[in-house]
């Protein structure tokens, strides 16, 4: 019996091969190269002459690194918590408003989304105008009118981190709202009708129906927002430039400054690897916790 030649459709490896090659060439290889550089003393001007753990030992023994990690965690945690909270709140309100045909519900959604469209550096500038310590600062103008005081939003190290978090929440909320709003639309109305028949209150409907059914969307939102917040710094660059001192310098910004300002490839690569590991750990934690609960 003659051997039957497999058709192209029966050979998935052949289909996948181009993509695998592309991924290897444009994603995996650069990542491996960054890992290699992180163990070297390479700068943009000098090729590596030494390999070892020196970048990591110097990084982990530096007091600035510890401060940067703390700043990054504060920035990410503060941004994410409120971004998701406000995103959920607005999504629920818009969703309910649309269901009940409340005028302006769709307009509200569009206005919130417009914050997301604005580029991060522009958002930094907008917030700089709002939070400026000079008299033209809108926030200080209002505070001054009521309390005859001014707050150093951008030059006090404690307030500066608060300022960048607020600005990031302002633009990130729209993203969370978009994801969660699309999730809300997936929940069948019949479930809510059944809950009403069972005598569920509005809170019970939200707690036992909406939240569990939104879980995959919350997971997507949290994962993407975490990765985005960890890796972005355009807003901080234009709002505080990492200052005062280093009080708003996050990991991603330090990678940029180390490579493009200091031209220190080795150290920049080591910082990138730290950022990669942090992202991976968080992605794994999210994945495990969400899937565990979903399976349970």
């Amino acid at each position, binding site marked *: 019996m003659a051997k039957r030649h497999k058709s192209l459709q029966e050979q998935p490896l052949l289909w996948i091969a181009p993509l695998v090659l592309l991924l290897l060439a444009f994603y995996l290889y650069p990542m491996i190269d960054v890992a290699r550089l992180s163990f070297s*003393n390479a700068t*943009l*001007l*000098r090729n590596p002459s030494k390999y070892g753990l020196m970048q990591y030992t110097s990084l982990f023994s530096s007091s600035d690194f510890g401060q940067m990690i703390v700043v990054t965690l504060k920035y990410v945690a503060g941004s994410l918590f409120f971004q998701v909270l406000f995103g959920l709140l607005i999504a629920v309100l818009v969703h309910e408003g649309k269901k009940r045909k409340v005028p302006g519900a769709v307009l509200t959604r569009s206005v919130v989304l417009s914050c997301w469209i604005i580029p991060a550096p522009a958002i930094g500038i907008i917030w700089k105008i709002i939070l400026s310590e000079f*008299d033209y600062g809108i926030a200080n103008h209002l505070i001054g009118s009521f309390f005859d005081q001014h707050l150093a939003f*951008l030059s006090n190290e404690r307030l500066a981190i608060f300022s960048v978090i607020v600005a990031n929440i302002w633009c990130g909320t729209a993203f969370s709202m978009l994801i969660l709003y699309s999730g809300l639309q997936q929940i069948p109305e019949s479930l809510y009708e059944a809950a009403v028949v069972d005598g569920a209150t509005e809170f019970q409907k939200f707690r036992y129906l909406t939240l569990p059914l939104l879980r995959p969307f919350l997971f997507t939102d949290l994962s993407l927002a975490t990765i985005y917040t960890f890796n972005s710094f355009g807003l901080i660059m234009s709002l*505080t430039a990492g*200052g005062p*001192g280093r009080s708003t310098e996050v990991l991603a910004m330090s990678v940029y400054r180390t490579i493009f300002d200091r*031209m220190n490839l080795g150290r920049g690569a080591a910082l990138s690897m730290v950022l990669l590991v942090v992202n991976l750990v968080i992605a794994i934690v999210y994945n495990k916790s969400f899937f565990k609960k979903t399976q349970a």
Partner: protein
Amino acid sequence: MRVKRTFFAIVLIAAVAMSVWAADPSAVWSIKEGTNLVKPEVYGNPNAKNTITFWVYRTLGPSSNYPRTAELLTERIESWAKKNPDTKVEVQIEIPQEKTNEYMVKLYEAAKAGRAPSLAHVDSFFLPKFLEKDAGFKQVPQPLDPYLTKAELDNYFDAYRQFATDENGKMIAHFGYTDVRVLWYRKDLMSAPPKTWDEVIAIVKKLQAEKKITEGILTQGGRHENTFFFMLNMFWAAGGELVDAKGNPVFNQGKNREAMLASLRLYKKLVDQGVMPAKVASISGTGDLNAGVKMTMPPFILTGHWIHGSLPQVIGEENFSKYAMAPIPTLEKGQNPVSGAGGWTTVIFEKDPELRAKAFSFLWEVYGDVKGMAAVAVDALPTFKDVSVDWRPTEANPYLYQATKMLNIARLRPAAPVYSDISLAMQVAIGDVILGKKTPEKALDDAWSEVKALGY
């Protein structure tokens, strides 16, 4: 047979036509009437046989945001293109102002890979890095000396000539324009500018007591090169040096440490005594500074001469007319003031001698001579002595004439690769001192450790 004859006839006619064509380059490399000679991606005859490549800083190109620069450079490029119909300039990269760092890194990478353009604009702040021997550059800045006369070389102010001269004594860059750091003072509030910082403090205290002002002095104190560069003027005037003759950092050693500490202590004193608000730590750029000035019209602004271009638009011509510029005060009486200077250079990387000569002809005819300098330096200052004698590129601008006088005390940042690392570490140190987060001693020691940890 007939086919063969026809074929040979065609070949013969073609050969004759080609030889005539080649014998008269002007006939071939002439430019069609109406050709746009200054397109964003190519300058000159688009069909020219020679191509030189150019990485242009947008502000210094025909797309400059200064209309006068754009217009004058377009005219000059057209003029060069008409004289050089056999050569075109291919604009490979046009970099906006905010992308300077990325652009410079890209240029380093290109030079290391041997793919640098024929000529490029280079921020003077980054030029010294091209002199690093261990970098393994396959292309390095080419000497301009063979193309310049002695008189032309001597015409550069010494500081600029020295800065752009390599260890072999060759000039490797054309300093297209420069700027100086100065103290702006309110001439309506004082009869003469202060010469020392003690005088500044005394004037501010008196004006504050008279309730004529609230804030004494504004400057940049955020994470920005200028934050350090402004302070550097006092450090230099006090006899401090950042690096030794070999380019190694020495700013925390001996008298240099004392000068740096004195400069940092000055900032602490200014903040502690209410002369300078701590909020300067949030001022990173000229835009922030101008906005701050608008609010309080302080008697002193420590900044660059260049604010004459932007500040009047923010505070109005009438208010701006109250300000005048003076040398930056010194820490102690008897010290000579210094004015830190910067600017952009143009560098030739072309290896091919013929194309290199073409690149130079473009550089000099567009940017090089008196009119070239006038074209790019709308708000800036010339680096040629003869041009600076009465420098007023626009009639309505008396400030440039005053600023030009400061060129006599101008000093450039050291041509050492470590400079940018010192600056970055010291920007953080200055911010920490202004905010009272660290003592001047601790801030300086931390900055020193940071620079030394980089292997210098």
